[in-house]
C-alpha cells in the first residue's frame, strides 16, 4: 500500500492547492508525466494513457476507443513522437465531443418561436437540479426573458420552498401547488400559467429519482405527457442534470431517463470539485445528446454555457510544458 499512499497524497495536495484549475489540467497534466522521458509512443505509454483516462472517469469503452484510434495512427504514421501525443489526443476528444453534430449554444436563452418555451428538468437525487434551475432562470432573466418556475418536486421535504427561494432571488414568477401534490398537474398548470401570463420560458422542476425506479420513471413520462397535452410539442427541452462526480453510472442514467422522457440536453454540475469531468467525454461519445450547460459553483452566476473547444482546450492547458 506504500506506493499508493504516496500516489494519493500527492494527488490530494495538488487538489487542495489548485482547486478548479486542477480539474481542467488533470488529465493532460498526468499524460505529460506519463510520457516524460520517452521519445516515442510505445505500448507502455499507451498503457499509462489508458490508466489516466480511466481514472478520470472517461470510462472503459471510450478509453479503449481513444486508444485504438491512437494505435491506428501510430501504425499508419509509424514513429510518432510523444510530443505529438497531445495534439492527437486533442483531435480525438474534440471529435468524440463533436459526433453528436450539434453546435454549442451562443447564448443562454433559447432562440425559439415557441411561446412559452418549456423546459423539463430531470435527474437522479442530489445532482443539483433545483440549483441549476435557479441559475438558469437568472441567466434567462438577464437576457430579458419573463420566466416562471414550476415546483414539480412535490416529494422531497422542503423542495418547493427551495425552488421558491430561488424564484425570489432571481425575481421571476413561481408556480406551486404545495407539497405532496400531483407533479403532472403542477407541470400542466405551470404551462397554463406561462400562457396566461405571457411568460417566455417555463422551467419545470421534478423530484430526483433513481433511474432504476420504474414507477417513478413512469411518473416522469406522465409529467411529460401532461405538458404536451396543455401545449402540443412541449416540453421543448428535456434537460437531464448529471453530477460530474458520478462515475460510469451517469451513462446508465442517460439511457434510462432518455427512455422515459426523450432527454434532449444535458447539464453537467459540480465541475468545480476535484472530479475530472471525463464523464462528459464518455457521454458525448456513447450518447448523442449535447451538453448545454456546466455548473461550476454554488453562486447564482456560476453556470456556464458548455463549449466543446474551450472545454477540450482547457483540458490541454498545462500540458504545453511537455
Amino acid at each position, binding site marked *: 500500500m506504500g506506493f499508493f499512499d504516496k500516489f494519493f497524497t500527492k494527488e490530494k495536495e495538488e487538489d487542495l492547492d489548485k482547486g478548479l484549475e486542477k480539474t481542467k489540467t488533470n488529465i493532460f497534466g498526468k499524460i505529460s508525466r506519463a510520457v516524460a522521458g520517452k521519445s516515442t509512443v510505445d505500448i507502455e505509454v499507451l498503457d499509462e494513457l489508458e490508466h489516466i483516462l480511466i481514472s478520470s*472517469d472517461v470510462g472503459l469503452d471510450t478509453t479503449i476507443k481513444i486508444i485504438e484510434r491512437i494505435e491506428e495512427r501510430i501504425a499508419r504514421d509509424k514513429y510518432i513522437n510523444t510530443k505529438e501525443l497531445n495534439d492527437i489526443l486533442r483531435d480525438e476528444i474534440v471529435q468524440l465531443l463533436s459526433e453528436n453534430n450539434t453546435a454549442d449554444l451562443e447564448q443562454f436563452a433559447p432562440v425559439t418561436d415557441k411561446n412559452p418555451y418549456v423546459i423539463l428538468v430531470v435527474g437522479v437525487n442530489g445532482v443539483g437540479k433545483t440549483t441549476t434551475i435557479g441559475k438558469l432562470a437568472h441567466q434567462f432573466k438577464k437576457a430579458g426573458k419573463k420566466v416562471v418556475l414550476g415546483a414539480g418536486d412535490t416529494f422531497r*421535504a422542503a423542495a418547493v420552498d427551495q425552488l421558491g427561494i430561488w424564484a425570489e432571488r432571481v425575481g421571476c414568477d413561481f408556480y406551486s401547488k404545495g407539497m405532496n401534490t400531483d407533479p403532472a398537474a403542477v407541470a400542466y398548470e405551470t404551462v397554463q400559467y406561462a400562457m396566461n401570463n405571457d411568460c417566455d420560458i417555463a422551467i419545470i422542476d421534478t423530484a430526483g429519482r433513481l433511474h*432504476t425506479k420504474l414507477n417513478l420513471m413512469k411518473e416522469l413520462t406522465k409529467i411529460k405527457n401532461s405538458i404536451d397535452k396543455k401545449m402540443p410539442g412541449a416540453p421543448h427541452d428535456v434537460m437531464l442534470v448529471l453530477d460530474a462526480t458520478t*462515475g460510469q*453510472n451517469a451513462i*446508465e442514467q442517460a439511457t434510462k431517463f432518455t427512455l422515459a422522457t426523450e432527454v434532449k440536453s444535458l447539464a453537467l454540475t459540480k465541475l468545480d470539485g476535484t472530479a475530472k469531468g471525463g464523464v462528459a467525454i464518455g457521454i458525448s461519445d456513447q450518447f448523442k445528446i449535447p451538453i448545454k450547460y456546466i455548473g461550476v459553483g454554488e453562486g447564482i452566476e456560476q453556470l456556464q454555457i458548455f463549449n466543446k473547444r474551450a472545454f477540450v482546450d482547457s483540458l490541454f492547458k498545462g500540458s504545453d510544458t511537455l
Partner: protein
Amino acid sequence: MFDSLQDRMESAFKNLKGEAKLTEINVAQSIKEIRRALVGADVNYKIAKEFTDKIKDEALGSKNVLKSVKPGELMVKIVMDEMTELMGGQATGINIKGNPGIVLVAGLQGSGKTTFSGKLALFLKEKKSKNPLLVACDVYRPAAIDQLTVLAEQVGCAVYKEPENKNPVEIAQNAIAYAKGHSHDVVIIDTAGRLAIDEKMMTEIRNIKSGIEPTETLFVVDSMTGQDAVNTALAFNDVIDYDGVVLTKLDGDTRGGAALSVKYTVGKPIKFASTGEKLNTLDVFYPERMAQRILGMGDIVSFVEKAQDQFDEEEAKRLEKKIKRNKFDYNDFLQQVNQIKKMGDLKSLMGMIPGMGKAIKDIDINDGAFSKVESIIFSMTPEERGKPDLLNMSRKRRIAKGCGHNIHEINMFVKQFEQMRKMMTQMSKGKGMERMMQQMQQRR
C-alpha cells in the same frame, strides 16, 4: 449499456466452468474480466489492479491445495474472501455513548446527508430506543432547514434550528446544551454539503468538529461516485478524521465501486447503507453481504432479516396449521401479499435472493404487481374469501364485473391459487418437495 459488476463477475466465472483446474491461462482470463468489471463499476483503477493482482496470486497458489473444488467455485471463494476482507471484515456499530451522544454528518453536496440524518434518527429511535435531536447546521442551501424540519416531523422526533444564526459552530453547541436540558440522549448534526477543495468550508467543518467533540463523525458518500471518490474521501479524512462512512443511493444500479475505493484508501469502516426513498430504508452495513451481493451470490441474510422484521411468529404458526389442513384461503393470501408489500420495494427484495439478480434485471416489477390480485380478492364476498371452494361460474362472473378484469383472468388467478394451495399442503406434509419436483417435470 454497462453491465452491473454482478453480471460481469458472473460472466467472468462462467469462463471457468468446465475447466478442470485453475491454470495460468484461465486465471489470467478471468482476472482480466474481474478487473474490467471492477473498473466499470467505478472502483478506483489502481485499487482494482492491486486487488486483482492479489486474487491472481491466491488463485495460482492454491490450485494444489483444494483439488476437489471446482476451479470456478474456488475462484469465487477467493474473490469473495478478499473482497470481504477489503471491505472491512466484521460489521462495526455506531458510537452514541455519552450524554448526549453526538453524531456529526458531513459530505459533498447532494450525497444525501439530510435524508440520511432523518433515517438515522428513525433508526436510533426505533432500533435503539433513543430520543434523538436533529440539528440543522446547513445555513447555506435554500430551504435546507425546512427539509430537516419536515423529516423530523415524519420521524416523530425533535429538531433544533436557529434560522437567523449563520454560525454553524454556535448552532451545534447550543443544540447540545439544549439536548442536555431536554433529555435527548443523541444529537444528530446535519451540515452543509461542501467540496473537499473549498478551504473556507473545510475549515468550517473542522471548527464544528473541534467545537462539539462528536462521539461519532460520519462521512456520507453517494454510491454512484466515480474515480474521484478516493480524493474526496482522503481530503475529508484529513480534515475531520471521520469514524465511519455512509453509503447512499444503493438502491440504484451501481454496485458500490466507490465503497471499495473509499474503504481501501482511508481504511475507515462503512457503517450504514441507505437504500431507498422511504425513511425506514437504512441498513447497518455488512461487508460480507455487500461482497456477496457484488459477486452475484445474492444477499439471503438481509432478505431473511427483512422478512423477520415483518413476520410475526404466532401468525406463521397459525398459517402453518391452516396450510396443513388445506384451509389456506383468500384472506390468508391477501395477508401474505400485504406483508410482502411492507417489506419494501419488490424488485430490490427479489434481487436479494441468490441467482435472482440477473434473472430479474430487465423485468418490470413494480409494487403495483399485486394490485390485480388484490382487486380480484376485494371483489369477493367475505364468505367466498374464507371458502375458496365456493367459487362457481356465476360467482366468478360477478367478481369479474366487480373488479373490472375479464373472466379469463379470474379463472387463471383461481387456478394459480388452487395450485399454490396444493403445493403448500404437500410441502408442509414433508414428502412434498420431492413429489412437487416430479409434478413440475411432468408438466413440462
